């Protein structure tokens, strides 16, 4: 399959990229890793007169600590997240997530910024970023602005990014001590989108009660779903087996998936519930032990 004709631009700086975007606006698409955009263009489900490749702009691929924040460059590839010791230690939820996106070959090119900016509720990073209460930095002709993740996903394939803006950074608050996170995904095979998936980020207080909870679901509606009631229910409680069951029930109730080849609505909602319970248990385990998300550590936990 061959995409419809377009012009390709490879700006060397962010300013050049923004100028091209300002010139072509709605007729332009930003090409990051291309692992969603190129299939879309090949299948002719989408089209663009101009592709602006941000892959040759230096300084957009990084993972770094900035005080209370972990900053991730928009063009950081999934393989970097997956292999980052810093991410494994600080944000095991994100290490889990990166390791189940598409397949290893795709992850060598796919980027975290692209995964978010694509606005696909079936993508995995949106739920993880909702659970982590991340912020997205959008850079446009008038400079950078920060968008809270809860305001970022506007509709199916639609985000709060303006046509003239590029997603340049993701900012995640550093989890306090006694925090843990996990991502649980059910997929028919490696490389498929989630039948259902749940992202959980938990912080316990000194007495063992939940002081903060982030829970979000993948592929459970036209936009990524935050399970607000489940989060509220958990805060202030000891995370006992019964409490986890009830929180997972509330999360499942927040899912409004649509039926497709991956399953019926009832099945998917039930899987959202089951996966939330699993992610909660793993996240809570990780609050008490050194948070590691290596395949070996995962196998050990199971």
């Amino acid at each position, binding site marked *: 399959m061959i995409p419809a004709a377009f012009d390709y631009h490879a700006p060397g700086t962010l300013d050049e990229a923004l100028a091209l975007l300002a010139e072509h606006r709605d007729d332009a698409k930003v090409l990051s890793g291309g692992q969603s955009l190129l299939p879309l263009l090949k299948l002719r489900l989408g089209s663009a007169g101009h*592709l602006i490749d941000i892959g040759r702009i230096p300084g957009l691929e990084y993972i770094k600590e900035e005080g209370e924040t972990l900053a991730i460059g928009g063009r950081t590839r999934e393989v970097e997240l997956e292999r980052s010791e810093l991410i494994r230690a600080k944000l095991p939820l994100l290490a889990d997530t990166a390791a189940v996106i598409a397949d290893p*070959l795709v992850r060598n090119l796919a980027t975290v910024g692209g995964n978010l900016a694509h606005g696909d509720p079936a993508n995995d990073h949106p739920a993880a970023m909702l659970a982590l209460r991340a912020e997205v930095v959008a850079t446009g002709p008038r400079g950078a602005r920060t968008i809270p993740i809860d305001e970022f996903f506007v509709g199916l394939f639609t985000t709060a990014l303006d046509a003239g803006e590029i997603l340049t950074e993701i900012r995640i608050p550093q989890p306090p001590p006694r925090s843990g996170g996990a991502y649980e995904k059910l997929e028919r095979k*490696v490389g498929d989108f989630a039948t259902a998936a749940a992202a959980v980020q938990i912080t316990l207080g000194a007495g063992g009660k939940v002081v903060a909870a982030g829970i979000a679901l993948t592929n459970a509606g036209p936009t990524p779903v935050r399970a607000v009631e489940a989060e509220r229910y958990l805060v202030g409680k000891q995370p006992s087996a019964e409490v986890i069951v009830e929180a997972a029930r509330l999360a499942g109730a927040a899912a409004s998936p649509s039926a497709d080849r991956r399953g019926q609505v009832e099945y998917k909602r039930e899987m959202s519930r089951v996966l939330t319970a699993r992610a909660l248990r793993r996240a809570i385990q990780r609050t008490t032990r050194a948070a590691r998300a290596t395949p070996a550590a995962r196998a050990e936990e199971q």
Partner: protein
Amino acid sequence: MAKHQIRVKVQGTEREAEVESRLLLVHFLREVLGLTGTHIGCDTTHCGACTVLLDGQPVKSCTVLAVQADGREVLTVEGLERDGKLHPIQEGFWQEHGLQCGFCTPGMLITSYALLQRNADPSEVEIRQAISGNLCRCTGYVNIVKAVQHAAAAANAGEQRPPTTAA
């Protein structure tokens, strides 16, 4: 519309061509350079038959534009053999019968080659994870895993002993 002059180092040799913006890397390799070892399978980023190394990393060349490879290095299955001698990973697939129809093999070889570059002694789980983006409809993967293990063992033995001529 929109032609670009690109230079891509393929198996270490600089190749130059004028290409359309929308030309895919796999078409550039197969149709412009005549390197038909890289296969087109699903053409939808699933099967991995089109896997090549781009700057040392295995990627699906049906989901990369040729213009994106400008100034970069590509290794295809044709580049594995040296001076008429199979690469140990190719030798492994031969010895362990790691293929039946052979359609997925170029991608499997490139992905396995990249794995062994990064991890000289992978576990079975690591091998299976590494090739999880490459689909094989014939073998059930068992002999492919053995083939990669064969290549790893041969390379590790080769480190201790001087190499002998290939069988």
